[in-house]
């Protein structure tokens, strides 16, 4: 230890501060004078000397500052990294970005002047230093030296590791496993881009039932051996047996890895974690905001949100906007400002008294899973009391909206055909003999009228409550359908269901409709991570539409978005999608059967299907491992797991441990991780990755900001992993390096010396990412280009990277990735950490500048006409109240004392902040089994009691850890008032069993875990599984969400 400490003390590579001072002093000390004058002119520095013996504050010197993007949580704030002595010592908000300083500093301001302004960051963001400088970080490749999950490892050279996973063979012979491991080379069976697209096209025909399997086999007989199963050509090529499973991945890295997985490896299976996340909400918003183009519904916006800065009333459900959501840094300030100035009133529906609920006018402690019922109750009251915006709702096309100065309109009046007693598609004008099949029909003043939703010339309005018949077809307007559903129950019945008093429902409904357009409904995971989540979302979205708030200042707003970085817009320097010679276009049914109707596939064999299909979802994370276990639709040969930990984060995820441990099911399991994590601990190989502070990407767009924002993530410190050599380049070991190395070894397209085209290499991460930055710098339209960095800024650019060693930052190498004329523009963007529009651009008059500007739907016809692949039941196109049920539509009965719910802590993110001693560990050393005083009394618990949790799917409350290890799911009781009786809440982020919390053996040396990281309860093993799906958690079938709040548990003294 002693010697290691000494090593750590030795100066980082590159220029030290002192060297730097010497050199600058030599050439005239540029940059050092910088702090003396700021944006406010002369500052107080001059006085400092007279009061303290002090030196100038090092962290305010521009040459000690780099701008990048946070990734402690997925919100991806823009941050300012302050470096001293080559070490990252402080993180603050980037004042150029409105998400982190409101209003933001002018983009044109020199970084020298910006140095003295710090933006906001949350406690996790502040503690990012400890995420990166984590003593348990991996630096070298680990290969297991015992059974999977045994905790025994050896370090092996990177080259050897790449060689092994590519070539396969008896890789674990030395530990007595004779098994031949398939290498990646065997999986990448098909390399020919032309054959790829031919096969893909005909699989498309099979899907549309225009081609039979036989015909396909005939047509492509010389290529059948590259298919996984010639009897099921829709499975696609063997390449699909490579799975890339990923958690938190952000723009830029997403495209980089897709380039590798989809377009170089040719696998369709690039699967993210999003069904654990906000997926159903996002998908429901997208569907209900889609535009109608060329006879199809497409586009859509994921995250319309209240315009917090101007809104007057918000009903918040199932989201902790001061603690999680997207995210506290952006949202808190306009909310607290509104609360204190009296502008804003909040009602919060959550079984827990969340921090935001504690500031609300009303806390509605509703029963879990009843958000849809609450939504419908309010809808009922609004409709009954005529408190909706009738004028808005009657607008049926763009012209009608425009006439009312609205930018959006709705399908409220669109007529839906009722077939066999259930609503199906919208009536098309051709069916009514009124127009084309691209037009819809409304009913107005006794007439049926054809409507083109996008018609901006001819005003079309329709009655919103219509129940009629045309040519023998029963028809109802979309809003009529919703009304009938809402009227099915009385307010008192809704009150019973939700546990919210009738009068409270009325009060909230009244308040919601008392502010014109300046009210909104905000919801997130708590409302949607239920088996009925989709419909809950639809009800809550509908509330917004009923008051016609979209695009209004203070109403429902679209995020400002950002500049195109991938280069698909015209006049961009680099169209990354096109810059890929020999690009393969992956095709076939994804492992998780997303984006496919069961009925379209060759596997269709009536109901119930073997496993669920997800035509309206994507990235169905919880389906990956059970699908591998079932080999449905096909077996998987190799998995590359990256930045994701399904064993920790998926409800009931541990039930798939046996799949992970089974070499027959998962012949090769590779992980890319920064530590030995809760899932990577079961891998065959772990390739060290670099953290967000050491690497590239182009950030996410903030959801709660109304102006254009494109952040860049860039290395602010040298990589902590070992340096390796690939194709003659010295690179830090990371995911990109791994992919570049595999591509090199396999000779895959899109990487290497001619990766982007003849003579344009993709041999280093910056070859890729700097091009994205150039795309950002050149803007989205003519004249939208950033200025060139001047000499001073270029010098600052260099100075501020003096501590970064050459494998990460080599100015020549960086410049080579670009054309010379792009360099200074890229420097300009990197010097500010991205590109940011001024926050005063958010509005035009009384409306948002960035607008949804399209039709908004109460009714989703394509969902209404699809069936659940297990139960065979049709879905509903509009919001309904559905009880919690499994995939066969069977109601989940009361199965325990308490309903288990979970939540996030403001100082913790998922599994990744347990290394943060300043924040997660310091602010709360463990999590708790939180329950109400009433329940505690009933069950005989008091604060601090140790209890064990049991559930239907885990009657013993056991958490299997593999290799004969197991532990009980136990925790410490915390009795509180601010939680609904009948509910027990356990936050996530604690209860680790890896990630530095346990002992591991590497190269026969025991590395001791840190007990501070092992505290608290990990409640995931308790979640309710679907009885029909062999170890898959209950899920929501349309958006694909995993259920997190539908489990009954029994809590007993341990």
């Amino acid at each position, binding site marked *: 230890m002693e010697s290691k400490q000494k090593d750590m003390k030795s100066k980082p590579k590159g220029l030290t501060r002192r060297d730097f001072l010497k050199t600058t002093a030599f050439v005239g000390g540029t940059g050092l004078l910088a702090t003396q004058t700021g944006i406010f002119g002369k500052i107080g520095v001059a006085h400092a000397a007279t009061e303290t013996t002090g030196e100038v504050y090092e962290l305010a010197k521009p040459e000690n500052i780099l701008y990048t993007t946070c990734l402690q949580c997925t919100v991806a704030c823009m941050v300012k990294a302050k470096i001293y002595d080559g070490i990252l010592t402080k993180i603050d908000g980037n004042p150029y970005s409105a998400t982190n300083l409101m209003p933001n500093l002018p983009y044109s301001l020199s970084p020298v002047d910006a140095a003295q302004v710090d933006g906001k960051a949350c406690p996790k963001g502040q503690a990012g230093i400890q995420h990166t400088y984590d003593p348990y970080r991996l630096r070298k490749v680990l290969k297991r030296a015992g059974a999977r999950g045994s905790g025994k490892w050896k370090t092996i050279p990177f080259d050897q590791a790449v060689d092994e996973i590519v070539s396969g063979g008896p890789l674990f012979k030395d530990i007595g496993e004779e098994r031949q491991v398939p290498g990646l080379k065997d999986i990448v069976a098909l390399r020919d881009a032309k054959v790829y697209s031919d096969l893909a096209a005909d699989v498309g025909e099979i899907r549309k039932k225009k081609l039979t399997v036989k015909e396909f086999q005939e047509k492509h007989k010389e290529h059948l051996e590259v298919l996984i199963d010639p009897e099921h050509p829709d499975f696609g090529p063997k390449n699909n047996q490579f799975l890339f499973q990923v958690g938190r991945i952000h723009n830029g890295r997403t495209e980089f890895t897709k380039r590798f997985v989809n377009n170089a490896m040719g696998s369709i299976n690039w699967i993210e974690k999003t069904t654990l996340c906000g997926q159903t909400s996002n998908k429901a918003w997208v569907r209900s905001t889609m535009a109608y183009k060329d006879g199809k519904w497409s586009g859509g916006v994921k995250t319309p949100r209240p315009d917090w800065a101007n809104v007057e009333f918000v009903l918040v459900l199932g989201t902790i906007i001061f603690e999680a959501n997207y995210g506290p840094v952006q949202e808190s300030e306009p909310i607290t400002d509104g609360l204190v100035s009296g502008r804003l009133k909040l009602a919060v529906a959550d079984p827990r008294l969340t921090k935001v609920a504690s500031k609300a006018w009303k806390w509605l402690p509703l029963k879990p899973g009843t958000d849809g019922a609450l939504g419908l109750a309010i809808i009922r009251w609004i409709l009954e009391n005529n408190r909706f915006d009738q004028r808005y709702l009657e607008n049926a096309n763009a012209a009608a909206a425009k006439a009312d100065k609205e930018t959006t309109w709705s399908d409220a009046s669109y007529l839906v055909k009722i077939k066999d007693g259930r609503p199906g598609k919208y009536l098309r004008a051709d069916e009514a003999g009124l127009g084309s099949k691209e037009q819809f029909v409304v009913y107005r003043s006794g007439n049926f009228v054809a409507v083109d939703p996008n018609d901006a010339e001819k005003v079309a309005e329709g009655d919103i409550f219509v129940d009629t018949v045309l040519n023998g077809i029963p028809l109802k307007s979309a809003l009529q359908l919703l009304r009938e559903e809402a009227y099915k129950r009385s307010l008192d019945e809704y009150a019973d269901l939700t546990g919210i008093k009738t009068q409270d429902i009325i009060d909230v409904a009244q308040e919601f409709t008392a502010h014109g357009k300046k009210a909104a409904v905000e919801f997130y995971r708590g409302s949607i991570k239920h088996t009925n989540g989709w419909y809950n979302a639809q009800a809550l979205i509908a509330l917004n539409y009923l008051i016609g708030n979209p695009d209004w200042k203070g109403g429902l707003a679209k995020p400002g978005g950002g500049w195109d970085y991938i280069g698909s817009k015209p006049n961009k320097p680099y169209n990354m999608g096109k810059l890929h010679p020999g690009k393969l276009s992956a095709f076939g049914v994804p492992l998780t059967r997303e984006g496919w109707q069961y009925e379209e596939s060759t596997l269709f064999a009536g109901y119930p299907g073997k496993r669920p299909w997800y035509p309206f979802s994507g990235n169905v994370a919880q389906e990956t491992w059970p699908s591998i276990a079932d080999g449905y639709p096909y077996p998987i040969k190799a998995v590359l797991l990256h930045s994701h930990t399904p064993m920790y984060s998926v409800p009931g995820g541990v039930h798939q441990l046996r799949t992970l441990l089974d070499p027959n099911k998962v012949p090769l399991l590779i992980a890319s991780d920064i530590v030995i994590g809760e899932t990577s601990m079961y891998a065959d190989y772990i390739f060290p990755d670099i953290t967000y502070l050491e690497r590239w990407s182009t950030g996410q767009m903030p959801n709660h900001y109304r102006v254009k924002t494109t952040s860049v993530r860039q290395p602010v410190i040298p990589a902590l992993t070992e340096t390796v050599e690939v194709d003659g380049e010295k690179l830090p070991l990371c995911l990109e390096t791994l992919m570049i190395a595999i591509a090199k070894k396999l000779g895959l397209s899109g990487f290497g010396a001619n990766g982007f085209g003849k003579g344009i290499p993709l041999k280093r991460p910056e070859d890729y990412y700097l091009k994205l930055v150039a795309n950002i710098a050149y803007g989205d339209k003519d004249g939208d280009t950033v200025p060139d960095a001047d000499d001073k800024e270029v010098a600052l650019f260099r100075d501020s990277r003096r501590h970064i060693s050459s494998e990460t930052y080599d100015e020549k190498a960086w410049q080579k990735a670009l054309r010379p004329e792009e360099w200074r523009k890229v420097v300009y963007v990197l010097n500010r950490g991205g590109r940011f529009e001024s926050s005063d651009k958010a509005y035009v008059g009384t409306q948002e500048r960035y607008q949804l500007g399209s039709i908004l739907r109460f009714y989703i016809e394509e969902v209404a006409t699809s069936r659940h692949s297990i139960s065979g039941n049709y879905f509903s196109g509009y919001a309904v109240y559905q009880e919690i049920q499994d995939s066969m539509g069977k109601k989940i009965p009361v199965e325990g004392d308490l309903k288990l719910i979970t939540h996030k802590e403001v100082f913790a993110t998922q599994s990744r902040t347990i290394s943060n001693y300043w924040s997660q560990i*310091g*602010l*709360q050393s463990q999590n708790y089994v939180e329950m109400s005083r009433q329940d505690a009394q009933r069950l005989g618990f008091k604060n601090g009691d140790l209890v064990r949790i049991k559930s239907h799917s885990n009657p013993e409350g056991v958490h299997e850890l593999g290799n004969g290890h197991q532990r009980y799911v136990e925790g410490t009781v915390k009795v509180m008032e601010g939680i609904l009786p009948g509910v027990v809440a356990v936050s996530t982020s604690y209860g680790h069993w890896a990630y530095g919390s346990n002992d591991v053996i590497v190269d026969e040396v025991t590395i001791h875990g840190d007990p501070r990281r092992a505290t608290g309860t990990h409640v995931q093993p308790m979640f309710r599984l679907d009885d029909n799906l062999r170890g898959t958690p209950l899920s929501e079938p349309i958006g694909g969400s995993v259920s997190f709040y539908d489990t009954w548990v029994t809590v007993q003294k341990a």
Partner: protein
Amino acid sequence: MKRLYYLLLFILTVVGFWALGVRFSNGMSVTNLTSYFSWGLWVVFYIFFIGLSAGSFLLSTMIYVFKMHALEKVGRLSLMSALFALIAGLSFVLIDLGHPERFWYTLVHRNMSSVLEWEIHFYLLYIVLVVGELWLVMRDDLSALAESAQGFRSKVARWLSLGYRVAKEEEGRRKQKGTSERWVKILGIIGIPLALGVHGGTGSIFAVSIGMPYWNSSIVPIIFIVSALVSGSALVTFLYAFFGQEEREKPEILNSLSSMLVLFIGIDFVLVLAEFLVGLYGAIPADTESLKAVIAGQYGIFFWVGQLGLATVLPILLIARSRKGNSARLKGLAGLSTVLGIIAVRVNLVLPAYVVPKISGLDKAYVDSRLVYHYAPSAIEILSSLGIIALAVLLFSIAWELLPIIKVSEIKQ
């Protein structure tokens, strides 16, 4: 027996010094103190020994100033124990400082409003005074020793006598005696406020702390003084009873000592009672919590067994018993019991103040093993304390052996 005694003290001292070595090289992290529980065992011993010292000294002043001839035999003993207790006490302050090497800053960087600052000055003055008084009362014997004793003992005596020699002729001797008695009296008179200041002031260190409701009471310094008298007279009783020469006046002296002890214990008890009743009645939450911890909580054992048992009830019972058989042993045991019990008193003076957060909820606001409200001394704290105590006892014992502490001018005759 004696060798075993010295061996034991020697071992404890060595181990203690090792512990101190660890403490000085590793800083305060070797303690189990926390930022919210910032004073512990060392401060307990610090006030214990200061109390012991002040008590012993006050006893000596009564003897010399108020001419309690009956007790003159134990005058030197009191002064001597005052000196060694003081040295022990100051050692505890020293090792309790985060930066002990800056100890002397207290003399250079003054802060007139700091009680602690005043105290440190008091302590130094007080050392001078005690040493001076001791010298004066012993100079005759030292001079005699220097002449009559052999070898090392004589050397020590010669050195300590600072060249003073008893006058050869009666006249001179009387003059010398007069001078020394006068000076002892003067020093004693100065010493009274000083000793009161030393310990009452030490009490004030605690009492002025508005941050600590448990301490923040004007009765605290008084209790400090009275309990100092308790411990001082108890210590002298104990030492004299067991180690004092068998002589004619011994039973009388012991009787007076033990009566005084009982008196002090009685006053102390009343004061403590007052403190508790007023505290509980006032019901300032933080104060009440501390009192509760003392009466019924984690400090209950110190209160009931130590404070009430060893330092109050047991000594009174023992002394009552001893009256019958005129037993020196029982009186000595009463003294010992009281001295040990006073340690518990000191524990309960310092530690319970820390049991409650200064602002409700502060304990949960940020968690760290150094931000907690409970404390049990570390091995290093315990060993170093034992080491310092052992060293003080060792030095005292050596002094006892070498110097004329009990005998009065008898050697010469």
